[in-house]
């Protein structure tokens, strides 16, 4: 029994990270109907921001978190301004390729500046607690708590603020919304900023949980989170969170029960089956109603 309890904790931790990253994808898609493939690399920048910030001084963790989120938010805004805005009216394929290229540019620039994997400084003390035969580390708990906190915060933002309503309005119909006094460009920039900040926070937490940081760390996780976002319902914030946790659960549980070599085969087959039955994702719905 405690074997499964342990695996469940493992799944929740992994799932919360996927969920946090998936949120970034969902937000951008919800507003612009565009998949921000550079998101995985923005996530990686969050971890690197932490490395930079802690190089000479050791600020307390909340300061590092906020600073990393701020830095990645700026990167998000820059990408939007320089790469995505000029292509707003262009065919979808062009926008996708641009996003992919942005991601590769970020990744390779970082790679050229830091070719060696680096250890992440332990700015959060990591103690392991034994609860009823299950090992749970303090970092795992902190990741789960912070991720859920950020997700709840985002949900409130979407539902209770002017920004949130504007965001939803833009995803509904972006041509008539400017006529109602909504500063579309500013809202879009803000959306990217928040999405990127969440990605950056996820990167920092991921770096703390798996403390070897390399420029390519965003690629695999980014893609997986994207899959999670789609399964949950791309464009749907709550769906992204659900998708993230489902992916984490499926990955861990398939290893727990079957030989680990089949993990990816099982996890992705299951997701494929979900999509066959619910093509718009678990919480998604047909195009004219999003978020």
């Amino acid at each position, binding site marked *: 029994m405690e074997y499964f309890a342990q695996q469940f904790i493992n799944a929740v*931790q992994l799932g919360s990270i996927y969920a946090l990253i998936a949120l970034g994808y969902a937000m951008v898609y919800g507003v612009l109907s565009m998949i921000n493939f550079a998101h995985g690399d923005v996530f990686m920048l969050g971890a690197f921001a932490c490395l930079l910030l802690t190089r000479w001084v050791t600020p307390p963790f909340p300061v590092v978190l906020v600073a990393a989120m701020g830095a990645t938010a700026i990167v998000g805004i820059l990408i939007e301004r320089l790469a995505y805005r000029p292509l707003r009216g262009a065919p979808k394929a062009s926008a996708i390729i641009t996003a992919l290229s942005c991601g590769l540019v970020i990744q390779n620039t970082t790679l050229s500046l830091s*070719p060696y*994997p680096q*250890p992440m400084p332990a700015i959060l003390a990591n103690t392991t607690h034994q609860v009823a035969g299950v090992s749970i580390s303090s970092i795992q708990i902190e990741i789960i708590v912070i991720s859920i906190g950020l997700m709840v915060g985002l949900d409130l933002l979407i539902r209770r603020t002017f920004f949130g309503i504007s965001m939803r309005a833009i995803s509904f119909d972006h041509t008539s919304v400017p006529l109602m006094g909504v500063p579309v460009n500013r809202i879009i920039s803000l959306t990217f900023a928040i999405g990127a900040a969440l990605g950056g926070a996820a990167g920092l937490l991921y770096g703390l949980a798996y403390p070897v940081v390399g420029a390519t760390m965003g690629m695999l996780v980014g893609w997986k989170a994207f899959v999670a976002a789609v399964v949950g319902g791309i464009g749907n914030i709550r769906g992204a969170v659900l998708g993230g946790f489902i992916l984490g659960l499926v990955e861990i549980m398939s*290893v727990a029960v079957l030989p680990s070599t089949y993990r990816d085969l099982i996890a992705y087959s299951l997701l494929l089956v979900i999509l066959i039955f619910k093509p718009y994702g678990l919480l998604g719905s047909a195009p004219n109603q999003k978020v």
Partner: protein
Amino acid sequence: MKFPTLIFSLACIAAGLSGCGRPSEPTIRLGLNVELSGEMPSVGASSKNGAQLYVDKINEAGGLEVGGVKYKIELASRDNGAKADQAAAIAQRLISQENVLMMIGPNSSACAIPAAEIAESLQCVMIAPWSTNPKTTQNVTTGKPKEYVFRGCFTDVFQAEALAKFARNDLKISRAAILYDVASEAPNGQANLFKTTFERFGGKVTALETYTTGDRDFSAQLTKIRASEPEVLFLPAYYNDVPLVAQQARRQGITIPFLGSDAWSSPEIIKLGGQDLAGSYFCNHYSTEIGLPEAKAFVEAYTAKFGQAPNDLAALAYDSLGLACESIRSARKLDRKAVRDALSKIPKYEGVTGLFHFDEGNPDPVKSACILQIKDGKFSWVANVNP
């Protein structure tokens, strides 16, 4: 029709001229196909340093004497990014375009195997300094050894035997678990060979778990491993994965020692892994504590030039260059086939990693392995295992 022809001719002239520009003194160009960026840049960097040290030693002494003429050695280093396809492309480029006489590297088996295919088909000698996977020197279709690809180190078959013997006889262990990267050639081969060899010596493999290249969360596999109650965990992974596995294992309350392969040899592993790896053992090609005079001189020269002690990658690259130069010298001409024949006939070569020789028709050398332990933040020599 005149304009395109003009452009075409100019292009041909330009292409022809780019082939010229050779230095005025006679030079031999040797190719170095290494991992300077990507997943394991430390591997390529050490390798390149070792190779460069040997080349500088030869050049400073006036050059390599081949059939009465002294040649300078030019080392053309190219980055394969630790990716199989790039390694193959670099091999192609070095052999066909840059016309190297021999190619040294790549290091990781995942890169060495495709590069070896290219070298074999283009009939250019390749020495793989660090790749232990048997497939590097084997012809995939016939199962017979390749003609043009040689190895500078022992194979995984020998390594698995060395580790299994050490675990059974020295550590007196009968239950082992294995966790490895199923998508990477070397770890995959090593894990399976260790399993068969360990079981052959009377041990039991309690868990055989896998992950894929790029994975960072091993919590599920480790929970399963812990439940199987092993006495040691064999982790044949490269230096970037091992610290993560070690840390997560310790977090889950797994206190048993780890056993590693030669892929652990980068000193980066201590920097990244810290306390979690203390007390672990691994099999290696080389130890700076080997007492031979030539080895000591090498350690001194390397430390003086690069500021840190050499590891097995540097030492093997140094020896591979040494083997290469020796074969060119005894071939007495700059012909790839002659050099190949000379290499296979070297009766005994004293390198910094020990004594080598190649048996007739076998591109894998006969040499010993050493077992090292990570203790007090550095590698210390424990035992030698002879063939």
